[in-house]
């Protein structure tokens, strides 16, 4: 079934990567305890990585035999610009989460992403971003006491001030 399909852009590279990773993991699994004993900690990792290696080889063989697609391109069909931008934005979010804190990072992320994807007005994007973050903050931080990174926002003081009002 698979072999009747043309090879998609990047598919060969991805499967070569998986084949290489499987081989490396098998080697690492062997390094855990070798063939020391059937109950050794490396037995299950070795067995599973061997299965990975063999199946990755079988898949690679299948991919190699298929003709490359002439209707698809890597930039248009596999990793178009919105996907690259989104991945970069999530990575930036993760990097900024601790130094800036949950609230500003999330508002910034949502604002930029909604603006980039939808092209709505600045007010709409900011309102949606702020409203969504407020709701998430209410559920996670205030109801379920999940400690989100505070960063530059003095959340503790703000919560204490709100509590003192009531």
């Amino acid at each position, binding site marked *: 079934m698979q072999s009747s399909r043309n090879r998609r852009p990047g598919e060969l590279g991805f499967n070569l990567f998986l084949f290489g990773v499987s081989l490396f993991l098998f080697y690492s699994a062997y390094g855990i305890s070798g063939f020391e004993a059937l109950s050794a900690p490396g037995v299950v990792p070795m067995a599973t990585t061997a299965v990975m290696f063999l199946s990755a080889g079988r898949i690679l063989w299948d991919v190699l035999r298929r003709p490359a697609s002439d209707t698809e391109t890597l930039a248009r069909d596999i990793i178009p610009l919105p*996907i690259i931008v*989104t991945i970069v934005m999530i990575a930036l979010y993760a990097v900024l989460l601790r130094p800036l804190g949950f609230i500003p990072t999330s508002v910034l992320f949502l604002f930029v992403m909604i603006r980039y994807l939808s092209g709505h007005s600045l007010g709409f994007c900011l309102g949606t971003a702020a409203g969504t973050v407020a709701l998430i903050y209410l559920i*996670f931080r205030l109801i379920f006491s999940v400690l989100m990174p505070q960063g530059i926002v003095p959340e503790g003081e703000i919560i204490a001030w709100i509590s003192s009002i009531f």
Partner: protein
Amino acid sequence: MDILSNLLMPVVDLKLLGLIAVGTFAGIYVGAIPGLSVTMAVSILISFTFSWDVYPALALMIGIYMGGVYGGSRTAILLNIPGAPSAIATAMDGFPLAQQGRAGEAIGIVTVVSFIGGFIGILALALFAPSLSDFAIRFQPRDFMLLAVMGILLVGSLSGESLVKGVFSGALGIAIGAVGMDPLTVQDRFVFGIDELRGGVSFVAVMIGMFGVAEALSQLHSVNTPAVKQKISRIIPAWPMVRKHLPLGLQTSTIGTIVGALPGTGGDIAALMAYDYAKRTTRNPETPFGKGAVEGLVAPETANNAAVGGAFIPMMTLGIPGDAVTAIMIGALFIHGLNPGPMLMVEQPHMFWFIVGSLMLANCFMLLFGLTGIKLFVKIVELPRTVLIPVILVLSIVGAYAVNNSVTDVYWMLGFGVFGYFMKEYGYPLGPIILGVILSRLLDDNWRRAIISEQESFGGLMRGIVSSPLSLCLFTVVVLIILSSTPAWKMLRRKRTA
């Protein structure tokens, strides 16, 4: 009379009734939000209810538990992001139904069958608790190992078009589950000198990355396509539809109850096993599995809700938790001066019947709250994707972070999200990866315990399997599952049905 009065105590006491209602309602939403787990909510409740009387404390926890297991299906159907691991199988056919504009119908079916599954599990708890716990306690490491092998064989059902890609994904999942310090020998496995890897890879980060981020990235291909208009004219499924799937629901409820009663397993494994069972036994489904088959919703949802009642069986009769939530509940009972186990059943049977009554009531509230508010809930899917996708991403990030308060988990989630996206693009199924991660520890620990108990002799292990009726029964099921996947078996079956 005593039994009846304890059974009905949560119904006649308005305070308890209200607490179960509030707990179930909150549980549905806790279960629906990825990153918020029932285990987390019940743990938090212990500190809140520390000074309460034991009955209201348990009533609230039971409500949250029952609602939470069901709630995981909501986001699985609407967004393809399971709110809880027990809803992973539900996403496989629930999300395709939402894409066809039938999210309301899917949630309606799931609610009704969850109620049926929950009812069967609680009934088993009430009627067969001592005998079922006796059965569960007979499980040796080799039996748990065989159970894990049975689970791994589900890869065939979750593989979609290519079995070999499913096998690769499943093996990758087991390898991911093995990352970190080995609990038996404290030896590092796949750690590569990175300290953060010693504690293993967060299962929730893998799940949210593979399902949430990968799905959001995939949807960016059609970001400007208008959202599918949802048909919400019929929410409550018609009786003929329920009746048609009742036999399957009863069978998968039994699977759920038994798996739930086994210590160390839970609703997630029960749901996946039930899905596989449905796929193997359903002849000519109206819609193929993976494309929106109703049987693909009935099986996992009856099983994971039945597993709730099942999980209480070893807890109440032996003092052994059936899953993570019942482990916390045992702690709560200890705090309130009670000692779950065989003596609790003898000395304070009223507690057992109170729990059964509370579970039954929570199950009824789950049906009530589950069937209301669906119209509002399905509107989420109709939001423009340009807004919905960034919100899903933020929820995914917060969910991954919230489990361990760790930014490293966010990086894992992103890594698995991007990797999962490419796997999806190139036709690799993601379900087997999660299956592998779930079963990795069960397989690894019990294989080693089983082989150690036979002095490292594989022959001894096989002799042990053959000489124990329970092990032999499980082994036969494993062999039958393997045989049923062979072309010869399929040809034979086609000939018989022709």
